[in-house]
Structures are given as C-alpha cells and as structure tokens.
C-alpha cells in the first residue's frame, strides 16, 4: 500500500468524522515489523517474524470518546471503522457527566525517521543466530552453569498520523535490543546473571558494539559466584545502585506516580492511582536535594523520543522533581487541562494501531551529580552494591516498594568486597529518595529502556528510556529474599 493510498484512507475516515459533528478525530495507520530470535540451552528455540498492519480511528464527540480499529487495511474497511468509532463516541457522550476537552497544540506537518547505521532487518539471520549460539555455548561450557538463554529483538514501525485539526505526521522508527543469561546451580539452589543492552531507537550497531562474547566470561563466572555466595544478613545497609538497576527503581517509584491520568483516578481499577496528587505539585518533598528527575522525550535514540506523541503533540523536556521537590506530570491533551496547564507534555502513546493512546511515562532520568563512583563507595562502612534488575513489586499508589537485583556485592569500609545473594530492599518511595545523598557524575550515565510497561484496560505495553548515573542511598532496610 502506497503512502497516497494511506492518505486517501485517512481523508475518507476524517471526512466522516467531521460530518458527524464530532469536535475532534484522528487516524493512525501503521505497518509494524518485528523479528525476535530466542535461544535456550545452546539451541535456537524460535525465530519469529511478525508483520502487523492496521488502522485505528479516534473520535471525540460532544465530550465523549470513541475508538475503533481494524487489521483490514483497505479503503473499503474505512467507513465501517470510522462509523463504529463515531457510534461508540456518541454512546460515551450520552453518559458524559463531564465533557472531555483537549488543550491546544500547534498544527504539525513532519516526518520522523530513526537515525541508524545498520538496518537490523538487513543483517543476515545466520549472523544473528550464530552470535546467540556462540554466547550460549560459551557460558554453558563453564562448570556449574546449567542453563542459558539469549535473544535478539528488532522492530520497525511505519506510521501515518492525521487529525481533523490538520496535523499530518509520518514516522519511520526502529528499535533494537539483545541480551543473554547464564543460570548456575549449586547445593540445591540456582541463580542467574544477565547481560543486556538497552532498548534503543537505533540500528544493529547497538548489538555490534555490545560485544556479547567479551561480556560472556564475566556473566558466566558471576552466575557461578552468585549461586555460591553467602546470603545477605538482614539489616540496614547503605546502597549504591547502578544505572541499570536505577532504571527500574525510577520507573516504578517516580515514573508511574508522575502519570497524571493515574493521579486523577483513570487507572484506579487496574494499574492504580498515585500518591503524587495534584495539590502536591510544587511543594511536596519527594526526595533529597540531590534528586533531580527530568523527563526528556527529545534525547536522541531513546524510546519515547518519537518526535511527536499519538496526540500529535511535539516531544518536550521538563522537570518532574527539581532539587527534591515534585513539580511536574506526564500528561496528554485531555488531562493537562484538569490541572490548569495550557499545553500537553506530549506523553500520550498507544502500543499499536489497535490500541487507543493513554498517558505514558516519559523518558524520565536522574540528572548526574558531582561524585565519582569511588566517592560513592568511599564513604560507606557497611553497604550493598546492586547491578541490574531482579524481583520488583510496588503498591497501587506507589508508596511501598520492594526490589531485588541481578548481582550484589558487599561494601565494607569503602571497598566492594565479596558477592552476596538473595538481597531484597524495601521502603516507602519519598523516604527512600530522601535518603539519596550522592549521584555520580555524567561519565557514569547509562540509559536503559522498557518495552513491557503494563498499563490500561485492555492492557498495553509502554516504551520509555530511563537514564541515570550511580546513586547512593543511606540506611535502607534489606531482607533476605
């Protein structure tokens, strides 16, 4: 299907929306391709190539929303889907006790393309499977490593967004990621260690530069060391957290509570609400003065930096927490007005043509501080250094959290010493961030992304990147997992 065909479909749909008397409508036509290669225990367990096409029409009629979508990408299907979206919006409007309204956004006409050197879909498949087999073979040659997993993933999205306001946006986006895991067994226990690249909007050069085979010896030996390590002794510890680990801590304890739709109750029945309620904006002490959490959907290569969101709003950069004080939300054109803002932050995204856009966490990151990593360790008498992701859970208002990690080391008198296992820490979000007394400088900054952030009913997967340098937290409760 040509771009002209898509424009014709868009025009037909939006004509019907305009003629219905609706105040707003938009259409997203998408063609997504993805390739996922999964390896398990030395073998390539699956290679899946997915082509996913369709379109979705969104209508705001007298303050009521309607959305309909179809995987039949043809001009003949457009009237059915557009009329269904209008019919649904009219139904919503019939029960509307309060009309939804959209804040203004300039009209945009643009094309956004992911900058990449190597298109991941042109890299020969045997080169990819060979890489995964080699790394699995290597880690499983180590005594006591009993299992291995490895995977490569790439996705391309070609999208056309057109609205009744005149915005027309073309997107040609890419995203890539790879990882491998070694699982060791010892004395009736088993433990895993994982190496992962971030998910980034880039080409296959991300995988090439990750150099799996150079990382494999460390991952294999640390899996064995971890399963044989002493269990942590429960107590109060200072924690030094690496950027990969912090990406999840920030995501759960800062990202989700800063979604305005949650704070307004839209997710009360599923993902939950937020302790960061609107009256706290501008005054609530979320963390220490070292804590500056910034949303930046303009940083190149990051997952939420798509130029524009699915409201057709330009991507932006803004503060969520400034010197410890909660100051900003992630918003869309509907909820922004409810806290008196005149423009959306551009954080409304859908996970496919078949889903309606909802407020999503932006690329929220912890701003670098002044310390070196050595400085952060130097002042710790008894602490734990944590790398990577492990167990995680948080309550539905984002107060009480509990995190594990992928690898743990004891810190004694300023030095990282032996590995530990089964480390779990827990706390209450603002108390935890108030205990942050140091952030490493820009040299240590790393970016990690998520593509499986669950939210919405029906459920959708959100994509965003979280960047951080290492950070230190004082006197955190640690238990044995």
């Amino acid at each position, binding site marked *: 299907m040509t771009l002209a065909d898509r424009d014709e479909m868009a025009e037909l749909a939006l004509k019907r929306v305009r003629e219905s008397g609706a105040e707003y409508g938009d259409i997203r036509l998408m063609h997504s391709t993805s390739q996922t290669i999964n390896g398990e*225990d030395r073998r*390539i*367990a*699956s*290679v899946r*190539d*997915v*082509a996913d096409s369709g379109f979705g029409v969104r209508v705001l009629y007298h303050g*009521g*929303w*309607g*959305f*309909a*979508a*179809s*995987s*039949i990408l043809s001009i003949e299907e457009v009237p*059915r889907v557009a009329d*269904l*979206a209008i019919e*649904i919006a009219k*139904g*919503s409007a019939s*029960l*509307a*006790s*309060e009309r*939804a309204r959209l804040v203004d956004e300039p009209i945009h006409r643009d094309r956004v393309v992911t900058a990449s050197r190597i298109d991941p879909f042109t890299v*020969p498949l*045997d080169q990819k*499977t*060979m890489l995964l*087999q080699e790394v699995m073979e290597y880690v499983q040659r180590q005594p006591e490593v*009993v299992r291995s997993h490895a995977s490569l993933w790439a996705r391309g999205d070609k999208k056309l967004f057109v609205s009744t306001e005149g915005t027309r946006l073309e997107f040609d986006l890419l995203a890539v990621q790879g990882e491998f895991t070694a*699982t060791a*067994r010892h004395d009736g226990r088993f433990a895993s260690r994982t190496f992962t690249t971030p998910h980034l909007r880039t080409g296959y050069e991300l995988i090439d530069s990750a150099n799996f085979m150079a990382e494999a010896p460390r991952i294999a030996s640390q899996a064995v060391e971890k399963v044989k390590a002493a269990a942590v002794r429960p107590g109060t510890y200072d924690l030094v957290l690496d950027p990969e680990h912090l990406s999840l801590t920030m995501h759960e304890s800062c990202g989700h509570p800063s979604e305005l739709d949650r704070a*307004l*109750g*839209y997710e*009360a*029945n*599923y993902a939950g609400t937020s302790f960061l309620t609107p009256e706290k904006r501008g005054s609530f002490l979320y963390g220490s003065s070292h804590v500056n959490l910034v949303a930046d959907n303009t940083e190149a290569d990051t997952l939420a930096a798509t130029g524009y969101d699915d409201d057709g709003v330009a991507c932006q950069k803004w503060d969520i927490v400034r010197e410890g004080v909660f100051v900003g939300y992630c918003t869309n054109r509907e909820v922004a007005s409810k806290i008196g803002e005149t423009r959306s932050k551009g954080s409304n995204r859908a996970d496919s043509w*078949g*889903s309606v856009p909802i407020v999503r966490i932006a690329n929220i990151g912890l701003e670098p501080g002044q310390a070196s990593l050595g400085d952060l360790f130097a002042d710790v008498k008894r602490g734990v250094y944590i790398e990577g992701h492990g*167990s*995680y*859970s*948080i*309550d*539905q208002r984002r*107060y*009480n959290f*509990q995190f594990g990690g992928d690898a743990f080391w004891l810190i004694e008198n300023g030095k990282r010493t032996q590995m530990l296992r089964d480390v*779990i820490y827990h706390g*209450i979000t603002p108390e935890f961030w108030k205990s942050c007394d140091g952030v490493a400088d820009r040299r240590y900054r790393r970016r990690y992304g998520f593509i499986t952030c669950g939210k919405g*009913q*029906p459920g959708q997967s959100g994509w965003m990147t979280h960047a951080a340098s290492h950070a230190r937290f004082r006197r955190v*409760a640690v*238990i044995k*997992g």
Partner: protein
Amino acid sequence: MTIANVKTWPKMTGRDEFRFLADLVLKRSSADQTVVNLLDQHSGTTRFASSRIIQNVDTRRGTLTVTVAFGGHRGSASTTDFSAGSVQDALARAERIARVSPEDPEYLPPPDPQVFPTLQTSRPETAAAGPARRLEYANEAIGQCRIENLEAAGIVSSSVASVGVAASNGLFAQEERTEARFSLTVQAEDATGWSAAAHRSIDHLKIQDRTLTAINKAKRSRDVQELAPGRYRVILEPAAVAGLWSWMLWTLDAKSYEKGTSPFADQLGRQILDERLTLQNVPGHPDLLGTGFTHEGLPSEDALWIEKGVLKQLAYDRFTAKQQRIKRIATLEAPCLSASGPTAFKTQELIKQCERAILVTNFWYIRTVNPTDLTLTGMTRDGTFLVEDGQITSAVRNFRFHESPLRVFKHMDACTEPAEAVTSETGKMLVPAVILRDFHFSSVTRF
C-alpha cells in the same frame, strides 16, 4: 439494546474460511512440515473512572501465523493481512527463515490429526454484545455507586475470537471462543472495594451482585487501622488464592523440573501440599474458560494435577514429554482447586470460625522473590480487614507479603467450596477461600 449495529459489525473468519486460508499456505509450501495458526479476534472494552466513561474501544485484529520446517530447521512468520498475496508472503518469509536457521535438536513435527472435544466455548449473546450492551452494564455499575455517593472505576468488555490450527499432515481444528469481563473498583474517599468476573457468557457477569460486593467492601474500608507487620492467620478470598496459585501453575514446567531449576525439583509423586487439596483441569466446566485444543493442536482434556496434596503432573513441552516417554500431554487452561472433607459454603462462614485473622480480598503486583523455593511478594489490595471473634471489626492498612505458597498451603485450617475467581493479573480459576496460619506480612504501606 443487545445487538450491535450490523453495518459496523465485522464478519469473523469461520471454519470454511480458515480452511481456505490454510490450504492457500499448505498447498504452496515446499517445507517438510507446515503449520498454520489463526487468531481472529473482535473485542471491545468500555472503561470508566470517577463514575464517567473515559475510554470506549473496539478492535478487530486477525493474525495468521505460518511455521515451516525443513528437517529440524524451523521458521515462523505472521501477518494481519489475509489477502492471498500477504498470506503467501508470510509463507515465503517463514521458508526463508527456516532455510538459514540452525537445526533445532528439539524440533518435532506437528501432532498427528486428533479428535478434539466439542466444548461450548462460544456464547451467541457475548458474540452479539456490542458497545451498547457494554455501556448499559457500565451505566448500571456507575448508577449503583452514585446512589451510595461513591465513585466507580472499572471495565466491561466482550470479545469473540476464531481460533484455528491446521498442518500439512492433516491436523485441523477450529473453534469460536467468546469471553466477557467485568471488574469494578469502588472508591469511598481514601478507601476502595473491588470485585470482578469473567465468563464465556456476558449474561453471567452478575453486574448487580458484584457491584454491591465492591460497594460493601469500600464502605467497610473507611475506618482503617494500621497493624504491625508479622505472621498472621489469614482468610484469603478466592481472588487472593488465585493470585498465589497462578504462580504455582506457571512454574510447573517439566523442562525446568528436569534441569533442576524448578521449585518443584524431585517432588513429582510426593506430598507437597495439604492432603485435602486436589487440582484438576476441567475444560468442559461451564464457569471456566476451557478450550477444545491448544495452540499446537493437542486436545484439551480433563486431567489430575495434584491429588490430595500429591504432585501428579507437570506441564510438558512436546520434546520433554517425548524424552520422558509421556504419551498424553496434560493441559491446564481450566484449573479447579477443590478440597475433600468438610468445607464451608461461603467466606462468611470462615470469618465466623476465626478468633483473630486478616481477611484479604485480593493481592496485587505479585512477583517472584526467590525462584528456588517460590518465595513471592505482593501487596494486599481493595479490601483488607481485621477479623476478631468471628466478625470483621475494622479495615487495616495494606500489607506487603513475603511468602511461598508451597509453604503456606502445606496446611490449611479450613476452606470453602471452589468459587469463580479472576483478577487483573490471573486467568480464570475455580478456587476456594481458605484459612491459612502463619502468613508472613513483611511490611505495611500508607493506606
């Protein structure tokens, strides 16, 4: 109004259409074996919060997946475009992948043609339910909450799916499956109450009863006290039991068992839980979401997984099953957990038996802490109460638990008959409400 506007209603892929699409692939395939999977789904959800409609959606998505193998070299490609050209392109992509993929030592050809059970997986009232019916149900729940001056947040959804599998060796199965869901969180200022349902028939969602349940929980949650973390006797309602049991079911895979990376290692045939507990798969049960066949084309059948506390079955992939000489692979898409001996009829009877206990409506954000012994963590949610002298005396602030279901279900003080249970994080099950002792709540939150 229960029938959707016929002009805006899509026509689903029926049995004959699927056979036509499958033949389009199978007749052109040059592979040794070829399998075609169909999932054509039409679903809609009406979502409300703060007692108003916030989202109202309808999506039709058809997906055809082609998997081919040359020897043990396998490839898979899918498309949402059912035109002849795109379907043949999916076959070509799958063949290209298979030709350059390494040989998979665990590859097995598709199962031989099977006789599948005929189950009532589709209900016409659900297939015909459209946005108007969903809106009617949402309005009913919102209205009941408004009468009580409470806020409602929730969903009403309905879907119909045509599911099929066809293979070059003659294997063929297709069935239509419907599903309707309702879930509701009632907010009384800072307090919440919750209830949920899922059923093949939209007529069985019991909107009024479930709304009243959520309202009562929210109202009872207003007066809340904070208790210290620690070990408590607990009464777990069916949704809370389903949350813990889902994680047990997900970790029953035979490959991990054989490789020693399963919490059930060496426990097959042994007493692992309370001797009154029995877990079965009952795909034909009218209140479960049983299916006639699996994605691979194996028949769903009644099966005994845990009998009187003894682990009898593992979840086999076909390769591990062949290695272990397992002839029939048991499925577990329609789980029913029941208890032998005297049982209570309702949770209320369990409450009456307790001098002091914590009553848990539901758990949230359950995750594995330690995979070796299946220690889990999660939060209580939407109705956590203190029971004293046989009655609820107050709500309590929500706890975080840190516990292994394999430990706490070794002994059960009492339980009810199995009841329908579904949560936002689990599939549908029939499970009892139970009284367990020494359940570990490791911390408490602010509400």
